[in-house]
């Protein structure tokens, strides 16, 4: 829903008539709702626009959010085109730069469709209403006699029609209506039907330009020799050999280390190799995974902050007949998108211009502003396409790098990272330790759920607590608490954030209760979720399609998990086999989602497939470790991704729903690792409480 202040009570119409080119730009300015009429044509507020229709009928939709593989460049335009009654073939999509008139432009929290749904609908409906009015005036008939369809206005029971392009000038002269009628969802012809990606071809013919591919005339390329461990600092630089490398232009100090600026990437890399650097070791030289986990275990001795308290835990503790305790340990994770971080910056005539593959242009702006001290109007942030992000590109450390380097030269510079730099300089999903204690009554019914967790959240609790306080199971007494620690390691949001940890913990523990009391994990969950229809919906769908309960061959088993995150519900059934030599194979994954109204069904299926694989990769291999104050992993050989040969067959299902649309990008991740580990428990009796699995079965 739109916030109250975002009501469509003020819209701007911008006539961009220059010569014969008439265009209608329709924009909404939620945050600047009181701006005056004088800001109309040719004003500086022109960028406040989502939609532009050209005289030739081309419809351009400006995207306020970032495309990183989640296909919002198709789903968001589908919503607008639905209400506009546009001809889908005439839709063009362009990335909107950072502009306060769009409101938040952060792409994260699986929120793009959820938060932009009403905005896109109203944007389209308003334009449709005005185009109908324009046609009615032209024909001198009542508006009620006209209707819009397929990019044109038509007369009911008549043969006349006017294409949108021919109505642009007329529509642009009309006042913008305050209220418009949205379509009845029953009449949707675009929303809910699979549309292939609007930019799909550019991804398979090599023409799509990602950040790494972005080029400006005269641009130089730089790489940074980075401070090798947390807390270290630069002692001495000898760049004499580096400067002799053909193509190397300059070597400059930056806060992340020493940057080698060159005419091309290979020269920059070669120049970096030739640097002779010495470092001050700093105060975190002994930082190691062992020490980190010891600190996290020790932290659990503190009572911490309580974030959920239901019933009377101390009373329930006394009344309980039986007790189950498990401790879980989860590692740091890196995002490792296929495209390593990079950014182009150019400081010219007191303007700092940044081209960044970013999920968070607002943060890119703050990074540029922090480096240069420039005012708002002196900084321009252009969002580029990105090869995956998964939360990593919410951070702007790589923007800071580029702007700092750009301060040393007067041409545009692209600062790129190698894979190793990217993995070693991440903003990691924090490691966490969880103590879960469950008390059962005399009939083995769960009476009390206590979850106490610790993690190095560095002041931002949601990256360790998310999902911990939202256990949906009907357990009358509950207490959830956390202790936050600090580390010199940067932490960030990793696809589904703390739901990855807490979803695993919750669903493993619930499974353990079922198993240890001899109950079917599905039946047990269903009983405790009987008042949670949407949990039940996905659980039943996944269970049914997976053949839950049917007999499997010897050496095979299924595990199930369900989790609610980012306002969506996902259930996963994992089917595994174990060879006599202890080799695990994930045979089949069945996943079901309820994300309300579905815009582009195939896009949701793709997110389910991808989320499941990201979850499996984390469960099987994902682990960033530290030794001597530095990250030990450096590339895909020691931070492996799931490969083709390891792929299970994945079947994905969507619960039919008329609820408002919610996200699909993150919710499939959390239930996947517990479904897999629950299958292992079913098959072997071994409860995996420490991720990744690695060789725990051999």
């Amino acid at each position, binding site marked *: 829903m739109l916030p109250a202040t975002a009501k469509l009570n003020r819209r701007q119409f911008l006539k961009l008539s220059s010569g014969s080119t008439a265009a209608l730009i329709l924009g909404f300015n939620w945050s600047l709702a009181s701006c005056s009429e004088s800001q109309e044509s040719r004003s500086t507020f022109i960028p406040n626009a989502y939609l532009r229709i050209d005289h030739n009928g081309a419809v351009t939709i400006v995207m306020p959010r970032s495309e990183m593989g989640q296909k919002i460049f198709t789903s968001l335009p589908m919503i607008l085109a639905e209400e506009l009654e546009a001809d889908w073939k005439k839709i063009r999509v362009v990335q909107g730069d950072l502009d306060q008139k769009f409101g938040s432009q952060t792409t994260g929290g699986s929120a793009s469709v959820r938060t932009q749904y009403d905005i896109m609908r109203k944007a389209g409906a308003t334009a449709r209403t005005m185009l109908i009015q324009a046609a009615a005036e032209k024909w001198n008939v009542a508006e009620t006699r006209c209707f819009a369809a397929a990019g044109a206005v038509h007369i009911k029971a008549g043969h006349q029609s006017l294409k949108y392009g021919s109505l642009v000038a007329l529509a642009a002269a009309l006042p913008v209506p305050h209220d418009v009628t949205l379509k009845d969802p029953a009449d949707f012809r675009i929303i809910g039907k699979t549309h292939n990606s609007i930019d799909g071809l550019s*991804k398979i013919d090599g023409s799509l330009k990602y950040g790494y591919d972005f080029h400006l005339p005269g641009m130089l390329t730089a790489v940074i020799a980075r401070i090798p461990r947390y807390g270290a600092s630069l002692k001495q630089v000898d760049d004499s050999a580096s400067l002799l490398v053909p193509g190397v232009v300059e070597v400059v100090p930056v806060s992340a280390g020493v940057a080698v600026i060159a005419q091309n*990437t290979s020269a920059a890399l070669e120049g970096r190799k030739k640097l002779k650097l010495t470092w001050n070791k700093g105060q975190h030289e002994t930082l190691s995974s062992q020490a980190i986990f010891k600190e996290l275990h020790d932290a659990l001795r503190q009572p911490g902050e309580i974030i959920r308290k239901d019933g009377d835990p101390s009373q329930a503790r006394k009344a309980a007949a039986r007790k189950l305790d498990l401790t879980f340990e989860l590692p740091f994770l890196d995002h490792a998108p296929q495209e390593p971080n990079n950014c182009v910056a150019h400081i010219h005539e007191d303007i700092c211009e940044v081209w960044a593959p970013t999920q968070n242009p607002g943060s890119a702006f703050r990074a540029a502003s922090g480096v240069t001290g420039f005012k708002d109007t002196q900084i321009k942030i252009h969002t580029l396409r990105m090869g995956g992000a998964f939360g990593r590109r919410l951070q702007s450390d790589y923007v800071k790098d580029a702007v700092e380097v750009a301060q040393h030269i007067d041409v545009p510079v692209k600062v790129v990272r190698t894979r190793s730099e990217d993995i070693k300089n991440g903003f990691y999903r924090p490691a966490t330790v969880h103590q879960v204690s469950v008390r059962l009554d005399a009939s083995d019914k769960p009476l009390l759920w206590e979850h106490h967790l610790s993690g190095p959240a560095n002041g931002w609790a949601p990256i360790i607590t998310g999902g911990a306080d939202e256990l949906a199971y009907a357990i009358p007494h509950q207490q959830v608490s956390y202790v936050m620690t600090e580390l010199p390691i940067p932490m960030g949001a990793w696809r589904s954030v703390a739901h990855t940890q807490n979803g695993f913990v919750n669903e493993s523990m619930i499974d353990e209760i079922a198993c240890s009391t001899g109950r079917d994990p599905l039946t047990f969950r269903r009983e405790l979720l009987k008042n949670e229809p949407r949990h039940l919906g996905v659980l039943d769908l996944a269970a049914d399609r997976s053949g839950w309960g049917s007999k499997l061959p010897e050496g095979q088993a299924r595990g199930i998990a369900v989790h609610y995150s980012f306002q969506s519900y996902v259930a996963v059934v994992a089917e595994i086999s174990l060879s006599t030599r202890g080799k695990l194979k994930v045979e089949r994954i069945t996943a079901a989602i309820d994300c309300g109204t579905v815009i582009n069904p195939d896009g949701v299926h793709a997110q389910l497939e991808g989320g499941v694989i990201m979850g499996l990769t984390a469960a099987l291999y994902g682990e960033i470790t530290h030794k001597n104050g530095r990250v030990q992993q450096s590339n*895909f050989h020691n931070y492996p991704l799931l490969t083709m040969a390891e792929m299970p067959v994945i079947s994905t299902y969507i619960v039919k729903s008329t609820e408002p649309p919610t996200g699909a990008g993150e919710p499939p991740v959390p239930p996947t690792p517990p479904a897999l580990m629950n299958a292992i428990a079913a098959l072997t009796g071994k409860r995996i409480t420490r991720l990744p699995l690695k060789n725990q079965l051999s």
Partner: protein
Amino acid sequence: MIDLTFTLNNHRETVNIDPETPLLWVLRDHFGLTGTKYSCGMGICGNCSVHINGKPQRSCTIPIKHVAGKEVLTIEGLGAKGLHPVQKVWDAEAVSQCGYCQPGQIMNAVALLKTNPRPSDADIDEAMNGVLCRCGTYQRIRKAIHTVAEEV
């Protein structure tokens, strides 16, 4: 710096370059062919795959001197005369998510289908296993390869 001549997407090209420069950077920085992607720089992930004399190779670890006199085909050359059948199926099956690895996936799939027009799942596993996709599009890649095999 030396002059090196090779065939790039059916055109004869000569570059004056450090012979140790990886082919990847020659393609991207000298010829502006950015469809071939950098991702791992160690020949692990296959995102930088091109064809050299018809065989899929990792351009990030091959010095340009080893390409002298040879034929290099990149994703841009593959579809130069209209989309290759593999690209068409890739589009129809909506394989891509972020799309970054897909040029590398496609170059490997094209090479596989050229030598093995009806690959089994095991053949696909073997040929495609080293091409990494963080978005997790493998299932659709497998399906697309089977679809091409059935159609062509």
